[in-house]
């Protein structure tokens, strides 16, 4: 009996916390059929928000994938002074609120800050523009790839890579043919988590983007703006689209994931 009680509790808990709210959004979105949804999503502001979201997310994922794999190799394979500090720094984004991240970026890269001012003098605008939004997204999703890949690298050990070296493989051949296939599943998982996080980011983006409608507005900001203005149909449609994108990415990687050797 205890077994069933526990299952029931878990089910009810998740129902009220996750399934019901998300389900209701979908329900409200399609309450008047598919027509208004298409109309909401094809408005120029919505389309623009889509584009901005995708571009920011893809950049953030690309940067975090390269950085994450490199960092994971550094942490799993090398011993050096300051490694513990580096390890702690990687987790910092989890501890800092996204809003604080946004403010911190403005303090360094804003127009009236030394670094930001210097860059602006050279024609590069960070804050209230794409670079700042990408930086903010990279910051908040920084640990996801590292933390997905690092334990797998540790568990895999160095011997396969060393064996490849003794068989004549260079460092880059070993990385491509041994290391990457070895961490493939974990890397895919990390990338999906990172993508989901990047698509859904709100707090840091809200601060650094300046919420300029039709310029720096992402989908999450679009949802918020429409909701504040009582345009619920637009807000719900965009929210559902966001959720669908996330779910699709998740399913895609499950389908695309090649069979593992073991």
């Amino acid at each position: 009996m205890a077994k069933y009680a526990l299952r029931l509790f878990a089910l009810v808990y998740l129902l009220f916390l996750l399934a019901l709210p998300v389900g209701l959004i979908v329900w409200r979105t399609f309450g008047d059929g598919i027509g208004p949804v298409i109309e909401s999503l094809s408005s120029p502001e919505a389309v623009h928000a889509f584009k901005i979201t995708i571009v920011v997310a893809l950049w953030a994922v690309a940067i975090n994938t390269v950085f994450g794999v490199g960092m994971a190799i550094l942490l799993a394979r090398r011993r050096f002074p300051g490694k513990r500090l580096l390890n702690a720094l990687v987790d910092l984004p989890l501890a800092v609120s996204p809003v604080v991240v946004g403010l911190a970026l403005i303090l360094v890269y804003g127009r009236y800050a030394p670094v930001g001012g210097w860059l602006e003098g050279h024609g590069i605008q960070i804050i209230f523009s794409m670079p700042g939004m990408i930086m903010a997204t990279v910051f908040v999703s920084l640990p996801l790839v590292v933390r997905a890949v690092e334990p797998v690298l540790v568990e895999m050990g160095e011997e396969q890579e060393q064996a490849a070296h003794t068989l004549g493989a260079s460092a880059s051949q070993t990385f491509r043919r041994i290391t990457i296939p070895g961490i493939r599943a974990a890397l895919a998982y990390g990338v999906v988590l990172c993508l989901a996080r990047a698509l859904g980011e709100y707090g840091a983006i809200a601060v650094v983007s300046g919420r300029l409608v039709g310029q720096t507005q992402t989908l999450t900001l679009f949802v918020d703006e429409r909701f504040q203005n009582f345009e619920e149909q637009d807000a719900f449609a965009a929210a559902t689209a966001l959720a669908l994108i996330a779910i699709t990415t998740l399913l895609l990687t499950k389908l695309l994931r090649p069979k593992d050797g073991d």
Partner: protein
Amino acid sequence: MAIEVRNVTKTFGVTPVLRDVSIDVASGSLTALLGPSGGGKSTLLRVIAGLEVPDSGTVTINGIDATRLAPQRRNVGFVFQHYAAFKHMTVHDNVAFGLKIRKRPKTEIRKRVAELLELVHIEQFADRYPAQLSGGQRQRMALARALAVEPQVLLLDEPFGALDAQVRKELRAWLRRLHDEVHVTTVFVTHDQEEAIEVADEIVVLADGIVEQAGSPQEIYDNPDSPFVMRFLGPVTEIDGRLVRPHDIELSDTPLPDGATATVTRIVRLGFEVRVEMSLDGRHTWAQITRGAAERLNLAPGDTVHVRPTADARLIPAGAS
């Protein structure tokens, strides 16, 4: 000489692992690096392979100074204790790896891999993944993979250490036969003196980062330089402050010239051989005799027995270690 190691020193942190080690490995030989764990034998093997860089000293492979050469340029085959199988590749692709890196033609690769899989008797598993093989099969695959690139020297790091006793014995005999077929200069690391004696032409005993002795198995067994080597290579016991092999002890029920007198404490029959445990001047000692000899003596616990080393016994003062 296929491999010459000269004055190699290696320290991990503050712990010296190799201290001024020099060894020679003859071309075409099968050499065992034998010693207790932590003695530096695996590190020495990894230095030869280029997987570790020595703090000082040189490594020469077939006349070329390889000390600073990256492992991928040394053309050595290396077999790891835990196989280091490429988990995401089939057995065929594992063995083909080195050849693909060398960009050999596809038909040649296919032919060579087939030959090697046959050589190590796993040709029927070519399309399986390593996880679908037993430990012994995985290790044979690793050996085929190392041999595929026709290495100048083959290095094996405790190759049978992770296998169970029965498979280990089979693979030992098989490795010896394989070496007689392939003739590649081979160095293997082991802490099992029986394995070293059974398989190797040459044994290098390493302990505490120092070469204790090097020579043929028989030389080392019969003429150990130190009490340590004598103890490590086989069973020893002590009579009158001297180390002696238990099978080099003569027992008699009548007094022996230069003999000592002991009291039998226990008799253990192990099939063909019999262990006679004795107390000699209050110290424990034992002799290994044949069943025939035991029956003639007809000993029982409590009996008095006269003991001395046989005329050709190798004796070493016990105090030195």
